[in-house]
C-alpha cells in the first residue's frame, strides 16, 4: 500500500545542511499497523512529515521514492498531494491541545476538513461533523461541537484530533506520538480507540513513538530508528526478546517493565551491582491531615483533601496519580512553595507548615528540603551556565565564595557525573540528560535530607531516563537521602520506590510497600492504573536470572553508567 525506498531528508540550517533521514526503506501493507520507534533526533517524525510533504521550512526530500497505491508522493503536484492529505493519508499528533486551532470551535475544525474534501456541504456539515465526533466515542457530541479546545481535557482534544484525521475515511493513519503528555488511563483509552477504528475500517497505520512498550503492544511490526537510519526491523516480540542491533538492545533494556530492576535498564556492560539501601524506621517527614483548598469560580475547590502519610529516613516514597489528582499540589506544599490550608507537615520533629511559604526561603531548614523539577530545560535559567546554576544555592544559602565554591561545584559535578568541561556551558548547549544532571546537582548541593523529585525523567528519552534513574539510586545510597518521587509512570515508581502512595481526586486511595501494591493492588483505581500501563512482551526467563544475580551482589560500588 505504501512503500518508501531510500528516503533521505535534509534540513538547511544556519550551521549548514543536516541529514535528518538517511536512506530509509519500509513498506506498510493493507490492514497493518507499523511501529516506528526511536529516541529524539532519530528522524522518525521527519520521515512521516516527508511522506505527507509537510516538512518544516528548510527541509527537503533529497532522494528516494515514496509510493502510495501507485501515486508518486514525492513528485505529485502540491494540488494533488493536498487532496491525498486528510482523505487518503491523515495524521494525528502529539500534544493534542496545541494541535488544534485554539480560537476555532472544534466542530468547525472538523467541518473544515469535511468540506475541503467535498465530503460535506454547508447544509449537512454540522451533522457529519457530529457523526465524526461520535465515531471517536465523544459523548454529547452535539454539545461538544461548540466547544473550544481549551474547554476540553487533553484526552478529549486528542479524540477531536482523531475525528479530524478520520473524518474523511482515510486509508492510512499516521500517529505521531499520539499519547505523549496524556495520562496513562487516557493513553490506553485513546490507543485502544485508534486501534479499534483502524481494525474496524480496515485501515493501515504507522505509529511513531519513543515508547517501545507501547509500540510492542499495538503494532504488528516494528522499525527501530537511530540517527536517521533504520537499525532493526521485525516482529515486536522478536525485537523484545532477541534484539540483534546493539542500539535496539539498549532501548529494550532501558524500557521500564515489570520484573526488571533499575540496574537492568542500563546496557549489560554498564551494570554495576545495585547499592543496598536500608531505610530506617524513623520518620523524617510526617504529613497529617494536609488540606489545600483553592478558590475556584464555582466555589472553593479542594485539591488535597486531608491526606496523611510518612516518609522515613532513607526511604523513597512514590506518589502516583493522574493529572489533577493533587500530587503536584502536595509536593509543592511539602517543598514549602505553597501554603497548606490546614494540616501539619512535621519535618524532623518540627511542623514546617507553620512557616509561611513566602518566608521559607530564609528559613534554615530550606537547605534540608530540595526539589528536582520536572522539565530540566524550563527549570534552568537560560542565561546561567551550568556552573552558575549549581552555584546559586551554595552562594545564597551556603554563603560560599571563591575557591571553596569552585571546589564544591566540581565535587558536585563529579557526584552527578557531569563532565567538568561542560560546567561553563549554557542550558541550550547541553543535552537533556546533562541538564537533568545539573538540576540534580543543584538540588543536592546543600546536602539536603529530603529530596522531592517531580517527574524528573518525564521529558527524557528512555535510555537517558535509565541513566538518570540509576544516578538517583546511587545518590540516595551515597548521601543517605530520603525521596518523595512524584510520577505517573508506575513502572518507574516500582523501580525506585520502597513505598507507594496512590492518589485520586485529592485523596489517598491506596498505599503500601511498592512490590505489594504493584503485584496485588487492592483499590479498583490502582488496578485500572496498572492495567493501563503498556505491557512490553515478557522476557520472564531472562529477567529472573538477572534478578537473582543482582541480589547476590550487595556491596555498593560507585560505578556510574553514563
Amino acid at each position, binding site marked *: 500500500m505504501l512503500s518508501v525506498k531510500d528516503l533521505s531528508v535534509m534540513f538547511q540550517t544556519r550551521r549548514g545542511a543536516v541529514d535528518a533521514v538517511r536512506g530509509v526503506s519500509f513498506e506498510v501493507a493493507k490492514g497493518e499497523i507499523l511501529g516506528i520507534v526511536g529516541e529524539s533526533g532519530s528522524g522518525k517524525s521527519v520521515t512521516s*512529515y516527508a511522506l*505527507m510533504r*509537510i516538512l*518544516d*521550512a528548510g527541509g527537503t526530500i533529497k532522494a528516494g521514492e515514496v509510493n502510495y497505491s501507485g501515486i508518486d508522493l514525492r513528485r505529485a503536484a502540491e494540488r494533488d498531494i*493536498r*487532496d*491525498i*492529505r*486528510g*482523505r487518503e493519508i*491523515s*495524521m494525528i*499528533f502529539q*500534544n493534542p491541545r*496545541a*494541535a*488544534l*486551532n*485554539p*480560537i*476555532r470551535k472544534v466542530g468547525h475544525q472538523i467541518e*473544515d*476538513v469535511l468540506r*475541503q*474534501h467535498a465530503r460535506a456541504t454547508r447544509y449537512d456539515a454540522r451533522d457529519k461533523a457530529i457523526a465524526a465526533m461520535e465515531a471517536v466515542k465523544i459523548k454529547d457530541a452535539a454539545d461538544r461541537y461548540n466547544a*473550544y479546545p*481549551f474547554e476540553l481535557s487533553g484526552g478529549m482534544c486528542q479524540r477531536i*484530533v482523531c475525528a*479530524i*484525521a478520520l473524518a474523511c475515511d482515510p486509508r492510512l493513519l499516521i500517529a505521531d506520538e499520539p499519547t505523549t503528555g496524556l495520562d496513562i488511563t487516557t493513553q490506553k483509552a485513546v490507543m485502544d480507540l485508534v486501534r479499534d477504528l483502524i481494525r474496524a475500517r480496515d485501515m493501515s497505520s504507522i505509529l511513531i513513538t519513543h515508547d517501545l512498550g507501547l509500540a510492542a503492544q499495538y503494532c504488528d511490526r516494528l522499525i527501530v530508528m537511530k540517527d536517521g537510519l533504520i537499525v532493526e526491523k521485525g516482529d515486536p516480540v522478536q525485537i523484545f526478546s532477541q534484539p540483534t542491533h546493539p542500539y535496539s538492545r539498549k532501548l529494550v533494556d532501558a524500557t521500564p517493565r515489570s520484573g526488571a530492576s533499575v540496574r537492568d535498564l542500563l546496557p549489560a556492560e554498564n551494570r554495576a551491582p545495585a547499592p543496598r539501601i536500608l531505610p530506617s524506621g524513623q520518620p523524617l517527614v510526617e504529613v497529617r491531615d494536609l488540606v489545600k483548598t483553592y478558590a475556584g*469560580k464555582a466555589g472553593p475547590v479542594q485539591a488535597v483533601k486531608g491526606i496523611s502519610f510518612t516518609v522515613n529516613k532513607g526511604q523513597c516514597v512514590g506518589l502516583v496519580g493522574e493529572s489533577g489528582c493533587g500530587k503536584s499540589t502536595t509536593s509543592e506544599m511539602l517543598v514549602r512553595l505553597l501554603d497548606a490550608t490546614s494540616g501539619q507537615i512535621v519535618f524532623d520533629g518540627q511542623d514546617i507548615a507553620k512557616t509561611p511559604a513566602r518566608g521559607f526561603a530564609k528559613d534554615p531548614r530550606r537547605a534540608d528540603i530540595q526539589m528536582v523539577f520536572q522539565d530540566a530545560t524550563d527549570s534552568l535559567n537560560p542565561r546561567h551556565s551550568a556552573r552558575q546554576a549549581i552555584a546559586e544555592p551554595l552562594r545564597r544559602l551556603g554563603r560560599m565564595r571563591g575557591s571553596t565554591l569552585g571546589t564544591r561545584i566540581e565535587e558536585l559535578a563529579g557526584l552527578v557525573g557531569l563532565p567538568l568541561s561542560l560546567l561553563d556551558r549554557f542550558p541550550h548547549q547541553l543535552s537533556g540528560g546533562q541538564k537533568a544532571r545539573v538540576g540534580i546537582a543543584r538540588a543536592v548541593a546543600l546536602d539536603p535530607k529530603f529530596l522531592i523529585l517531580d517527574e524528573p525523567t518525564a521529558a527524557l528519552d528512555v535510555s537517558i531516563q535509565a541513566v538518570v534513574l540509576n544516578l538517583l539510586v546511587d545518590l540516595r545510597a551515597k548521601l543517605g537521602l530520603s525521596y518523595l518521587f512524584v510520577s505517573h509512570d508506575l513502572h518507574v515508581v516500582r523501580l525506585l520506590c520502597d513505598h507507594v502512595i496512590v492518589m485520586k481526586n485529592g485523596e489517598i486511595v491506596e498505599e503500601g510497600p511498592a512490590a505489594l501494591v504493584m503485584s496485588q493492588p487492592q483499590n479498583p483505581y490502582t488496578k485500572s492504573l496498572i492495567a493501563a500501563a503498556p505491557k512490553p512482551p515478557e522476557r520472564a526467563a531472562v529477567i529472573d536470572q538477572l534478578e537473582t544475580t543482582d541480589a547476590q551482589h550487595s556491596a555498593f560500588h560507585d560505578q556510574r553508567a553514563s
Partner: protein
Amino acid sequence: MLAAFPRLRAILLRVAQAIPVVIGVVVISFLLTRALPGDPAVYFAGVAADEASIEETRVAMGLDRPLPVQFVHYVGDLMRGDLGQSLSSGRPVATDLANRLPASLELTLTALILAVVIAVPLGVLAATRPGTWVDHLCRVVVTAGVSLPTFFTGILLIYIFYYILGIAPSPLGRLDFIYLSPDHVTGFYLIDAALMGDWETWRGAAKQLILPAATLALFTLAPIARMTRAAMLTALSSDFIRTARAAGLSNRAVLYRYAFRNALLPVVTTLGMVFSFALGANVLVEKVFAWPGIGSYAVEALVVSDYAAVQGFVLAMALLFVALNLVIDLLYTAIDPRIGFDAQ
C-alpha cells in the same frame, strides 16, 4: 441570567471597569490644572484689570472657595457639558473641541486605515515568504517609517506632490476655499459630504486629507507591519498549522482561517498603541498642514496659558484613550474565545 452568558458577562464587566477610570481621569484633570503655575483669575480678568476686578473674577469663577467645593462645581458643570470658556477663541471649550476633535479623528483614522491596509498584507506576505523581496521591502518600509520624523516626511511630501508635481492642493487646512464645508453632522468632512451627496466637496476634502494622512500613515505603518510579520511567523510555526496542513486544507484556509486569526491578537494590541501615539504625533502633522485639529488647538492654548482649553483637551484625550482601550479589549473578546473566561 448573566451566568449563562459568560462572554456577555465579561464584556459588561469590562465596561463597568471603565467607570472608575473615567472618574479618576476627571479628578486628575481637575487637580492638574489647579496645580499648574499661574492664577487663572488674573488671565480671565483681562490685561487692564486691577486688584479688585481680579478678586471679583476670582469670586465669580468660584476660585476663592475650597478645592472640594470647586471640584463639586466642576463636576456639576461637566455633567451639563460645560467645560468652561476658552480665553483665546472666546468660545466655550466644548464647542471648540466639538469643532476640532472630528478634524483630528478624521485625519488619524484615515491614516490608520491607510496604514493597516498596507501594513497588514505586507506583514503577512513577508511572513509567508521570508527572505524574498517582499520580506526585504517590508524591512525597508519599517526602517524608513520609524526613522523619518513626521514633520520631515510631511514637508517632503508637500515639496514633491504640491511644489514639484503640483498634484496635491495647497496644504492649508481641511478644505480649499473654493468649496463650502458640508453641513455638520458627524464633523467628518468625508462622511458629511457623502451624506449630502456632494461628491465635489467630498473629492476636495479627500484631496486635502491624502497628504497629511499619508504622512501619519508612514509613521504608524512600521510597528503594525513588524508586529504582523512577527505574529504571523509565530502562528505559522504552531502545531495546529501542521494539523491543518496534514488534513489537506488549502493554503488559503490555513493562512487566513488558522494562522491569521491567531496572529490578529498581537496586531490589535499594537493597533491600540499605535492609535494613541498617532494622536500625539498629530500635533506636528497638524502644524505642517495647517490642519485645524485638536492637537494644534492644545498647543496654542498652552502657549497662551488658556487653562480651561488645556483642561478640556486633557479630559477629551483621556476619555478618548479610555474608550479606545475599551474597544480594543472588546475586540479581544470577539477574536479570542479564551478571554471571556480568564477576565474574572
